[in-house]
């Protein structure tokens, strides 16, 4: 394995949740590598552990055992503050339910990661506007999330994920709350991002969505069932 070229290397990671007396093995000894610039889909039935894996890669959660390397650096020894910084600068997260702050307008939502990243106000505004223009929301800057359509909300969420120019975009069921046509538009946006060199990792249980990726990891019961390499489209 070539560490420098791989954005993620997982070495035997497990994640165990303790719910009362019951121990739930969400991930069991999972190992894999993800190449820089790869377009990867993770598929599996609900409860298979794919979201858990996503959270661990997104630095929102830590593995119970095993190691995860981000760009060759082990991240399990990092502090909470350092993880927050990685979430801020290295990773853009897109959620199924958009997770925009309802009291803020689209522009303010997109500015949020830049705010925590310490980007000064004028540059923040310029960058947020630029990235919103890139996803086609330049006319919706001052709308609240509740005032725009689901597709537009997901575009705003993608804009937020891209605002701090991360190299990795993680998307957890990004089309799950959208109709087919809008979902297609969002997927085209991801395709475009991948063409520009971003590493895209998405979790889905829809075959059509996963078909956009160049590699699909199937997960079942917390373990990798098989990996499907697809021909470049």
């Amino acid at each position, binding site marked *: 394995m070539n560490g420098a070229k791989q954005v993620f290397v997982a070495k035997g990671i497990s994640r165990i*949740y303790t719910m009362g007396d019951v121990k739930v093995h969400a991930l069991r000894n999972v190992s894999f590598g993800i190449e820089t610039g790869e377009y990867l889909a993770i598929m599996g039935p609900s409860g298979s552990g794919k*979201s858990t894996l996503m*959270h661990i890669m*997104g630095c*929102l*959660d830590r593995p119970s055992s095993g190691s995860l390397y981000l760009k060759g650096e082990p991240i399990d020894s990092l502090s*909470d*503050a350092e993880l*927050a*910084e990685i*979430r*801020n*600068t290295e990773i853009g*997260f897109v*959620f199924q339910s958009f*997770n*925009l*702050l309802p*009291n*803020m307008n689209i522009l303010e939502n997109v500015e*949020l*990661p830049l*705010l*925590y*990243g*310490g980007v000064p*106000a004028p540059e923040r505004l310029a960058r947020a506007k630029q990235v919103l223009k890139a996803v086609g929301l330049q006319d919706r800057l001052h709308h609240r999330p509740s005032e725009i359509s689901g597709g537009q909300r997901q575009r705003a969420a993608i804009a*937020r994920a891209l605002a*701090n120019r991360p190299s990795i975009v993680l998307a957890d069921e990004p089309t799950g709350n959208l109709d087919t046509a809008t979902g297609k538009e969002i997927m085209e946006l991801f395709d475009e991002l991948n063409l520009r060199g971003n590493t895209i990792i998405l979790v889905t249980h829809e075959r059509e969505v996963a078909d956009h990726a160049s590699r699909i990891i199937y997960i079942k019961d917390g373990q990798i069932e098989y990996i499907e390499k697809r021909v470049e489209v």
Partner: protein
Amino acid sequence: MNLVEFMKIALFSLSANKLRTALSLLGIVIGVASVITMVALGTGAQEQVASQIGAMGSNLITVSPGFIRGGGGRVSQDVADIFTLELATAIKSTSPFIKHVAPTSETTALAIYSGTNIRTRVVGITPEYKEVINHYPLVGRYIRDSDVDNSEKVAVLGSEVALDLFGAENPVGQKIRLIIGERRHTLTIIGVMEPKGQVMMSNYDNRIYVPITMLINRGLTTRYVDGYSIEAVSKDVAKAAVKDVEAFMTRVLKDPDRFRVMSQDTILETVSQATSTMTLLLGSVASIALLVGGIGIMNIMLVTVSERTREIGIRKAVGAKRKHILAQFLLEAILVSVCGGLLGLGVGWGGGYLISNSMGWPFAFSLPAVVIAIGFAACVGLFFGIYPAMKAASMDPVEALGYE
């Protein structure tokens, strides 16, 4: 991220839920306002007392017979026997720190002038008394040594007595009748005192001054006086004068319980101790209101934190650190309590002003109380905000996002 940006976020969150913010603000407003009002009224009372004691004459010392235990509050005859006019001279010569000794005697009498009669206090005095209590005639003259020597039937009226008996008429030269006990006396008015007002417990304007000899010889037919008012040479030696007088009286009476020496200092101390205790008490009661307000903030903040779990999760997911979340929620709590403090300051000041105006109570707006109240409010915000803020900051991002 700088403070201004944190402030913006905090203000934004606060304005997003106006009613809730207003309610938690109200708790602090009431708390701070009551502290400000109570302390201002207490300090006002303290200042009034101090100025009244000052008005009694600057270096006043009084000597009076002590009450014998079990005597039903009456002065025993053997003690009263000592309190003579002559003792005044003896007291004066006992200490170099004494300027004047004025023996006094008091009784209640009915004063009559052309059909009007009023019940009033008659105070027998010597000429020194005016300097001792710092109270001088406005019209006419005061009691003279010759009046005292001859037990002259002359009187100086307090300003209220003059107004009640004579109205607009000039009393000087007129004659009034005094009924003291069973006896009637006709006295010539020689002067009217300047108004002095209510000082401590006694009204100096509702009195008639007569030569002390006239009162004890002709009126009460006794040889004894009620006590002595002593003026020390200066404020600095007042304590030394008190010591000398006490030593002298102990020599004469052989028992420190058979007389009482009170100086202005001891009165001032006693009274200001009482009023500052009152101020402290009022302030502490009001502080409880502030404390309750703080608990209100904590309560609201806890609700806010659990209600905004998802927001916290989102903020963390996009890169907010623990300290960012902590600062945001802490700042919200402090903003509420400082704004509440400032509003409470206005309300407290206005309320105190209204109360003092309508009730005639003195009111002193003290800067330390303001600083303490605002500072205390900020601390309340900090103290009661820190737990909810820590709770928010330590949330697990995955759980906060509402997964699983």
